[in-house]
């Protein structure tokens, strides 16, 4: 069964810590995405990557960075965690859009991060 795996379902970190959220997909997808989801705000795009070593800022990149050294893995890094980064983090992947294909995203189960 093809899937996107996020390393942790729940995570509690202290303010100021450096936090790594890992995401691995086994579908050989080119595109990968990190979203955060907050009540009343919906899903907001943090960063995305359209191929290995490529990255693009989304709508809310401040306070975050990403790494994509291998095609299957896309890491989200909180450089210095703050309480306003408490949220549900969702990773997704998608096959590169082509002329004949339009593809949906495959999401991981999410990581609920609490920063105290």
């Amino acid at each position, binding site marked *: 069964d093809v899937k*996107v795996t996020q390393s942790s379902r729940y995570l509690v970190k202290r303010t100021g810590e450096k936090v790594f959220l890992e995401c691995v997909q086994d579908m050989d997808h080119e*595109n990968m*995405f990190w*979203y955060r989801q907050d009540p*009343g*705000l*919906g*899903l907001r*795009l943090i960063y*995305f990557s*359209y191929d290995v070593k490529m990255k*693009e800022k*989304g*709508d809310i990149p401040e306070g975050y960075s990403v790494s994509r050294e291998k095609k299957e893995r896309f890491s989200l890094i909180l450089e210095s965690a703050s309480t306003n980064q408490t949220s*549900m983090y*969702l990773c*997704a992947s998608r096959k590169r*859009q082509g002329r004949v294909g*339009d*593809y*949906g*995203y*495959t*999401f*991981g*189960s*999410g990581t*609920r991060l609490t920063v105290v």
Partner: protein
Amino acid sequence: SQQGEEDPQALSIQEGENATMNCSYKTSINNLQWYRQNSGRGLVHLILIRSNEREKHSGRLRVTLDTSKKSSSLLITASRAADTASYFCATDAGAGAGSYQLTFGKGTKLSVIP
């Protein structure tokens, strides 16, 4: 930035009834997609409709798209308690800036009462 807006925000129906959710968006799209999210979990892709399509079916799901009104609807027929979830529409703007990403609405929370 939010593009899709779902309506209603919440919907409660009896098992066996049909559920209709609407989505409006602002700019031209390449395709529109619907996703389901069970409480506290990731999103699951349900169906994709391209801008040159008007209607699409998948099992008990029926999606319509009206590009002139920039709107879409998702109909779930003969609902079941297991359909209880939040439903999101997402738009793909296609080629050009932002073509790699989907823009999600805030979702409709559907409750199906047994």
